[in-house]
């Protein structure tokens, strides 16, 4: 039976991380669709989703063959590497050291690139637009697949984590259909900061469990790790911001 106190963090982390990735993929698909219509964009997206589904179907059963502690350790290490990388980048963006992710600018750049390709090879443009959509969805989708596996597989929570990712896809698609432009008002860096905190917390938890450690308080230890990484992220942002402000003065 699903225990919500255990499942909610997995659903939440998968949902928030997937929103970030799906928004980025949506921008690329929208650029392809704006230039050549929805057919090549939809075909490219469909092909990417089929490739991702095949990867899951091929690799999924293999996860059951891996001993639980080894799986938890491997996932914990990868989550730590990914979560800390996201958190570091979010801190630097929040401090103004590196520019924020700008969906409008990415949309403009993708459209200009496709427009340039249109002038060079008009006959192949549907193919180029389709491939652009395929690449965008495949590359962003890979991260979604990894996050779902990472937050779900270690604790038998693959279904709740998948549910979180599916909800994110549905939400972005519905909002995207209505606004029909890049979703630049999504607070992407704040989401990335929050997801970085959650993935890092999961990373410490699963790495410890994989090494045979019984954390005091079991799943509740996750809350402590979230608080620790949140504090470190905020402190790190303040440090980086002070340097950025010195440069600005």
């Amino acid at each position, binding site marked *: 039976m699903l225990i919500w106190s255990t499942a909610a963090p997995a659903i939440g982390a998968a949902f928030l991380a997937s929103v970030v990735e799906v928004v980025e993929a949506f921008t690329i698909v929208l650029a392809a669709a704006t230039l050549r219509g929805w057919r090549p964009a939809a075909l490219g997206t469909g092909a990417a989703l089929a490739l991702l589904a095949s990867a899951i179907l091929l690799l999924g059963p293999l996860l059951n063959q891996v001993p639980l502690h080894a799986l938890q350790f491997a996932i914990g290490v990868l989550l730590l*590497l990914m979560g*800390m990388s996201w958190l570091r980048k979010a801190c630097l963006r929040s401090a103004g050291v590196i520019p924020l992710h700008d969906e409008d600018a990415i949309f403009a750049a993708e459209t200009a690139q496709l427009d340039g390709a249109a002038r060079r090879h008009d006959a192949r443009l549907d193919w180029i637009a389709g491939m652009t959509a395929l690449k965008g969805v495949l590359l962003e989708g*890979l991260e979604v697949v990894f996050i779902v596996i990472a937050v779900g597989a270690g604790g038998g929570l693959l279904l709740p984590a998948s549910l979180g990712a599916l909800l994110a896809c549905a939400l972005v698609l519905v909002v995207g259909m209505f606004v029909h432009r890049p979703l630049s008002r999504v607070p992407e860096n704040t989401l990335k900061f929050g997801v970085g905190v959650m993935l*890092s917390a999961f990373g410490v938890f699963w790495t410890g469990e994989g*090494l045979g450690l019984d954390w005091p308080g079991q799943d509740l230890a996750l809350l402590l790790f979230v608080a620790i990484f949140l504090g470190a992220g905020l402190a*790190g942002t303040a440090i980086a911001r002070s340097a950025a402000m010195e440069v600005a003065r």
Partner: protein
Amino acid sequence: MTLLKEVAAELIGMFFGDARLAFALLLLIAVSAALIELSGLDPLVGGTVLALGCPVLLIANLRREKRAIAPIKRSAA
């Protein structure tokens, strides 16, 4: 082929966005694992080193970024 290269680059970038931070993390994990598995101490010691070491590494990495920005100011002045 280009697509495969881009997939590989995306996967590497996911985990090794900043190589220095990534390798420091791997080293910390190795030390924690040694403390838990080999030292004979309470396993929680290794766990605590891991849980507190990660945020310390993050802050140290961001402090290093701060020092990297400072010369920009000096050269601009």
